[in-house]
């Protein structure tokens, strides 16, 4: 007997987005979550008494008004805020303050440097707007393109035609370049170059001198390119998503992980949970890591050899460590106002590249580059006068030669060394700290490899190759089994796009 129409596995933002959209269409949805609260990698936890903070994801990127409208999130208590300022910091250097997103005001730059940045920003925005057209729907396939994408391609072609030949040539030249080369062709401020090099490579196993690293910057800019990105806090988004899903009639079940997908005669007909409960449905949508879906929930026995081999080649080793610091006193950091702020330590391009080098060999950087989100003055989630510093440290490989037991401490010390130089005495104000290295993320969130994007986000694993060819349209070779989440097109970032796209594909297919 079928208990519902669709079983969604995983109550992360993509799973909830897909579940809500499917529920709106009148389908009966059961959403199964292993943890005892919703949110997945965008969820919150209590770090220390009085500090309830986002565990992993601390900032959104590419979340668009259209996504919020599709789910009517504004009706469910979504709080829109101001864009977070970004502050580029380095010891012995004046901070670089960017208000709003990249297009906003930048402090303290000379006129020629502002001009150089404005020219580059224009070119990058134009180029990322071309790519953006292809991320808000199922990806184009090499042998098949939907009418919608054909129309988008035509529109992109016309936009380029209007912009002129030089713009097209420049796009075709730059699209796979190392971000460092793009930045070094201009005269922009070295601090800004370091910041952009960092942003382009965060969460991906490339350095700014690696070809194709410009893509990370495009992806970040894509939300902003058309000016539709909405500033919202992660916590508020998850609250609103949960409320929207509940209102839409999605039935949640927490605290019982799915053990396996039940496949009968090559068709997915339901799931079995770890506690032994069986749920049946016409369709199953897995919003967890595609590697976990295929290897753990389905099992290689039910996949053909080609797919099983392809799944093995997904590069899942994560390289970002999250350090959560509960601070008794809000630290004094130059350039940072009373708002919630994103602080980036990436003094210049070479610093980012040098931090990347050891990560290739399973070693930690001597001087790590990181982004830290500092809570606002008066944030309810922390005690009065206190603060929460949420740090994402780049280039911290899953397979660490010395092992993470030692690595956690080493990394915390090298990050604190930088922080002490930026804000002397900060170390003494720590009330609680936690280091979540890639293996911790693997264990805590059921993501093999602990990768932010559930798998490397590089050109060879985008579009029709994400997660692997043959399962790139949110469909899998197993009838009735669908996938979404960061491991699928278009990839990570708390923006709900893959959940939206997958739900729409399922509805289009009459599932």
């Amino acid at each position, binding site marked *: 007997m079928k208990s519902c129409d669709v079983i969604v596995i995983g109550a992360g933002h993509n799973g909830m987005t897909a579940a809500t959209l499917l529920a709106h269409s009148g389908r009966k949805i059961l959403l199964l979550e292993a943890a005892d609260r919703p949110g997945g990698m965008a969820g919150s936890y209590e770090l220390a008494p009085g500090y309830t903070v986002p565990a992993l994801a601390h900032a959104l990127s590419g979340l668009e008004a259209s996504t919020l409208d599709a789910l009517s999130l504004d009706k469910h208590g979504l709080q829109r805020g101001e864009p977070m300022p970004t502050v580029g910091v380095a010891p012995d250097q004046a901070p670089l303050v960017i208000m709003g997103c990249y297009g906003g005001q930048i402090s303290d730059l000379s006129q020629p440097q502002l001009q150089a940045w404005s020219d580059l920003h224009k070119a990058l925005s134009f180029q990322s707007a071309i790519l953006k057209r292809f991320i808000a729907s199922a990806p184009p396939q090499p042998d098949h393109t939907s009418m919608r994408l054909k129309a988008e391609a035509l529109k992109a072609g016309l936009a380029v035609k209007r912009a002129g030949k030089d713009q097209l040539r420049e796009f075709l030249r730059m699209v*796979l370049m190392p971000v460092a080369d793009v930045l070094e062709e201009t005269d922009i401020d070295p601090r800004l170059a370091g910041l952009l090099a960092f942003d382009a490579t965060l969460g991906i196993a490339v350095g700014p001198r690696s070809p194709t690293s410009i893509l990370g910057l495009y992806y970040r800019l894509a939300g902003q390119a058309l000016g539709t990105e909405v500033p919202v806090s992660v916590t508020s988004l998850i609250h609103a998503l949960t409320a929207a899903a509940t209102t839409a009639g999605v039935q949640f079940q927490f605290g019982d992980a799915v053990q396996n997908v039940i496949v009968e005669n090559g068709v997915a007909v339901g799931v079995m949970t770890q506690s032994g409960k069986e749920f049946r449905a016409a369709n199953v949508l897995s919003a967890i890591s595609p590697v976990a879906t295929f290897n753990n929930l389905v099992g290689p026995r039910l996949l053909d050899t080609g797919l099983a081999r392809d799944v093995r080649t997904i590069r899942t080793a994560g390289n970002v460590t999250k350090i959560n610091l509960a601070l008794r006193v809000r630290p004094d950091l130059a350039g940072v106002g009373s708002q919630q702020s994103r602080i980036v330590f990436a003094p210049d391009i070479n610093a980012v590249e040098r931090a990347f080098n050891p990560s290739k060999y399973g070693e930690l950087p001597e001087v790590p580059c990181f982004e830290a989100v500092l809570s606002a003055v008066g944030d309810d989630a922390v005690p009065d006068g206190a603060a929460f510093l949420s740090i994402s440290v780049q280039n911290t490989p899953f397979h660490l030669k010395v092992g993470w037991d030692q690595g956690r401490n080493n990394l915390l010390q090298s990050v604190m060394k930088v922080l002490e130089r930026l804000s002397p005495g900060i170390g003494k104000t720590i009330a609680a700290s936690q280091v979540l290295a890639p293996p911790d993320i693997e264990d805590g969130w059921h993501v093999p490899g602990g990768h932010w994007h559930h798998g490397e986000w590089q050109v060879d694993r985008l579009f029709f190759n994400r997660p692997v060819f043959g399962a790139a349209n949110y469909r899998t070779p197993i009838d009735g089994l669908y996938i979404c989440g960061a491991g699928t097109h278009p990839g990570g970032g708390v923006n709900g796009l893959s959940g939206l796209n997958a739900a729409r594909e399922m509805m289009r297919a009459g599932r």
Partner: protein
Amino acid sequence: MQRPYDVIVIGAGHNGLVNACYLQRAGLNVLVVEKNDWIGGAAVSRELTAGILYSNCSYVCSLFRPEIMRDLELAKHGLQIIAYEGGAVFKQDGDYLASYRNHHAHRREFARHAPRDGEAYERYARDVTRQCRFIQPLLMRTAPDPASLKPRDLGELFYLMKKFNGLTAREMAATVRFWTMSISDYLDEYFEADVVKAYLALAGIIGTALGPMSPGTAYVLLHHYMGEVDGNVGAWGYARGGMGAITQALASSFRASGGIIETGNQVSRVLVTNGRAKGVVMDNGDEHSADTVVSNADVKRTFLKLVEEPDLPIDFVRHVKNFKMRGSSGKVNIALDSLPEFPALPTDSPCIRGDMHFTDTVERMERGYDDWKDGKWSADPFLDMMIPTTIDPTMAPPGQHFMSCFVQYCPPKVRGEDWTDADRDAFGQTVINQIADYSPGFKDRIIHMEVRTPRELEAEVGLTEGNIFQGELTFDQLLFNRPIPGYAQYRSPIDGLYICGSSTHPGGGVMGAPGRNAAIEIIRDLKRSPSHVSPAHEIL
């Protein structure tokens, strides 16, 4: 004032000569001018020390297009390519990985290091050959300009699309991955043994300013695989008499059809009047007039040194300045009084007649690249070492040998400063020490050695920053982007001025394709018949 020529080719490198041969055969009157007293550019055989000939820059041959050899009758003019057998990677633990031309022997050797790698080699060879088949015909075609609506460009774009559409969907997806992956990631999908991966990765980095873990290096691997010797795709060989044999045969073919080569005289600038090339001015004040000037020099030397900046559009000059051609390799040429011994190899192993390497993990290669990024030569460099005299007896007296060591990575400047002689010697010593670690008594066999850094390459051959490919092989500098978007069809903003070196599509290696493709464009512009130019043949 001397009698006017139809065409002046600047530089007698292999591409300049190929270009000159085709133009002369089209009935044009061609003069080749060369700054050095000898011809050949980076494909030369010179005397290293008394009695020992050597290929001082390029050292092996595979990429040179057979269509060109046939069109220009190079065999008749003395060119002979001998495929070599074998090769080895020496491991730090005393073992080695041999390579053999025989596919089955090669597979068994892989399987000796990791049982699964033997089976994986079958899949790998099949997949890489498929990529070769896709790319090889593109080498001998002018890249289309994607921003142009000219029938010819549209036709070429259509050809590319048709070719791509000829693949199955799965193959298309795999092709996109292959073009954009790092060679390290690509090999990880097939192989287990570190030494097997290190052996196969080397073709992904030779001549590039990238490490094996940089995206895009899988394509570079292809660049080294799509050559052939006598129809054996992927095979490499020695030119009998050294690499100079190729340019000597080209010069002989050129002269036989009536062409003239002038050596020992450098072009100081290209004469430009009203945006049209009119000839060249030589360092000694001579002028040669011609309505067509073809530069075999790299794109930076051609447009930043030989042409006055006001004659060029501002955007074009900016692009030329941004063109990346950082040198990444050096060369150590050694004359030996006897054949060195490598105790790791079995006695009389054929491996010694091929390419030998001492880098047994991809990590060591990548660390070498990290040094280069910091402006240092690799402390533990990657060597592509060979002893051509084990096969070619014409290069050294009996018993003596010439050893060629291609060394990567070697920066164009040392920590931002110019190379000094002391730096150069220290770099050479790093290389010798590495060889001596695997070959006892090696240092005592050395009669003479010559160390070449990017500085020497630039000074002698004229390659800016010592980049052996006249420009890095990255996506932004390939196909219609090479060398400059909008100027990828061998023409320049100056009417009548063309470029035909490796800075142009399809890029570096002793291939001859840029010279030939440029000749076709010139022949079209001059409304001559290209009937003597064979089209690319698809042999795979």
